[in-house]
């Protein structure tokens, strides 16, 4: 296993800059998610690490060795593709054994390692099937087994779960995490699903327009986004418009709300939907901010409920467990309140 470093990576396609001076460090044995909207460069970054693309500038190092000029077939990486990319003309066992046969490990060794890989992904007796005879989840597992059977230095996953339905996707997330821990392989994972990124990874990197906007453990990024884009992309955020005045924020209509006492200079302020509480009467107490609003809509989603409230032309989203959400009439006056310290303080307004 190995850690991966990319330094000052720049990659352009014609006039489009896909990666713009990206520097990132992927720790050994970690599970790293690259998250961003489409066109943010996350797949370009993954394919550059894999060796399908070569950077215009900058370097890729795997395990300390520079590999920028090494093509993918010599880079010793395992890769899993969005559509699985299983060879339809081969059985499951031949698919998994493909990389071993290329490395000429011998028939007995190949059979042993393919068997072990099939056990690892819990497909023990499906070795003789063809890919078209498998379900989506099973194909997924074969693709994973095939990517790790050669003991690559890095495992790269390109939106591997996006083709699965939701229930199966959650099963596979758990499974993927288990297998990754079991073999301890450095894993880099591209996704546009922020929930999936937070569930699976121990570090995430947020990309936007070819640049890394923020990276770190998911909880840190979620709780302390460094700019408005990250705040809105990773989870939801209700922006508080106004200007800071010492320890208070003066909203556009003159309402003063309390800000948390934190070191630093902040340019924007926001509140997560789950930090907001909806109530009929104004809650009081030390460090509680409350603003009046009009309840517009209530959306039931099983365990959770979402309410949309409107205030001075701006809509606020409130999320709570359905049983904790008060049953208030739509288009009625309500109060939105939150703990002062749960306000997101954002240093850069992007």
């Amino acid at each position, binding site marked *: 296993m190995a850690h991966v470093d990319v330094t000052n990576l720049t990659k352009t396609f014609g006039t489009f800059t896909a990666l713009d001076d990206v520097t990132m460090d992927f720790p050994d044995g970690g599970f790293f998610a690259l998250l961003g909207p489409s066109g943010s460069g996350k797949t370009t970054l993954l394919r550059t690490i*894999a060796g*399908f693309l070569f950077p215009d500038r900058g370097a890729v190092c795997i395990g300390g060795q520079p590999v920028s000029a090494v*093509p*993918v*077939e*010599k880079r*010793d*990486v*395992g*890769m899993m*593709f*969005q*559509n699985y*990319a*299983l*060879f*339809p*003309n081969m059985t499951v066992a031949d698919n998994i054994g*493909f*990389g071993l046969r*290329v*490395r000429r490990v011998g028939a007995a060794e190949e059979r042993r390692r393919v068997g072990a890989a099939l056990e690892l992904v819990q497909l023990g007796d499906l070795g003789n099937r063809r890919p078209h005879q498998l379900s989506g989840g099973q194909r997924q597992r074969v693709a994973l087994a*095939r*990517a790790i059977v*050669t003991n690559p230095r890095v495992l*790269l996953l390109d939106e591997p779960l996006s083709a699965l339905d939701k229930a199966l996707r959650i099963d596979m997330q758990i499974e993927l995490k288990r297998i990754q821990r079991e073999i301890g392989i450095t894993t880099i994972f591209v996704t546009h699903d922020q929930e999936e990124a937070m569930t699976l990874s121990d570090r995430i990197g947020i990309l936007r327009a070819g640049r890394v906007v923020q990276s770190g453990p998911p909880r840190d990024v979620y709780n302390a986004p460094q700019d408005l884009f990250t705040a809105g992309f990773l989870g939801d955020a209700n922006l508080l418009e106004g200007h800071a005045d010492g320890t208070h924020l003066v909203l556009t209509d003159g309402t003063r709300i309390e800000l948390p006492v934190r070191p630093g200079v902040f340019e924007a302020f926001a509140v997560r939907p789950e930090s907001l509480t909806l109530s009929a009467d104004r809650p009081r107490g030390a460090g509680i901010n409350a603003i009046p609003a009009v309840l517009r809509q209530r959306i039931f989603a099983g365990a959770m409920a979402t309410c949309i409230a409107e205030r001075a032309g701006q809509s606020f989203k409130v999320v709570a467990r359905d049983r904790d959400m008060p049953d208030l009439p739509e288009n009625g006056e309500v109060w939105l309140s939150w703990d002062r310290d749960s306000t997101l303080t954002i240093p850069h307004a992007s």
Partner: protein
Amino acid sequence: MAIHPAGQRRLGVLGLLSPAYLWLTVAIFLPLSAMLYFSVLSDVPFGDTDWHYSLENYRAFWENPVYATLLWKSVKLGLMVTLVSVLVGFPCAYVLAKVIRGRARETLFLLVILPFWSNSLVRIFSWAIVLRGNGVLERSLNAILPFEVDVNLMFSTAAVVIGLVHSYLPYVILTSYLGLQAIDDSLIDAARSMGAGKLTILARVILPLALPGVLAGAVLIFVPVVGSFMEPRILGGRVGTYYGTVIEDQFVAVFNWPLGAALSFVLLAVVLGILALASPILRKAQT
């Protein structure tokens, strides 16, 4: 009376199928039946000839070894032309399907199907101008090369093969292209990520997956080439006597339609036999 939806559907299917089958019946089944009828006659049933039913024409095939020898020569020609077309056409199809994109691909495609738009006789006579001694090919080579060369391919098997490959190459390019186009690029990426080099990918991923298309093209070429007569006659001259030219002679020169018809049916049987023998391989390639 209301028509049942399923019945309506069946009517629709029949309506869509019937023009094609009607046409096939008129264009293939009727002439073929007429030929079958001719093949068991002793003489053409026109004018005041004296004719009767006989299997004489089929017996002629067995008794005169010339026919079998020529048929074998034609089959070999078919294999040769098919092989050359696949060897030339597959790389071309690969480049079209996997390397070139956009406008350049459209242009190259146009060049591939251009032979279809020209008259085949014009095409063949053009080759005659190119291949004959002191022809375009010889003069061009002598203009480029520092030493004199003597190229007279006219009236040789090589000329026949060149002419036939030119006529039928588009088939193998088009069918191989379709086969290659259907191969997802991520399969090639996946093979590369597992450390496979170009040759391994070609042998273990691309060729097996493109094989149905290549074989379809090969069959499309092989069948008409075995029965071809125009290219052998014009470009082959004296060596251009093949099974197809003999059949043509029976109809055009000797006016022995019954023998020509019988020889045609023997050819049909042999070609069907070869395809039947090859069908297990063809079917295996489909999966």
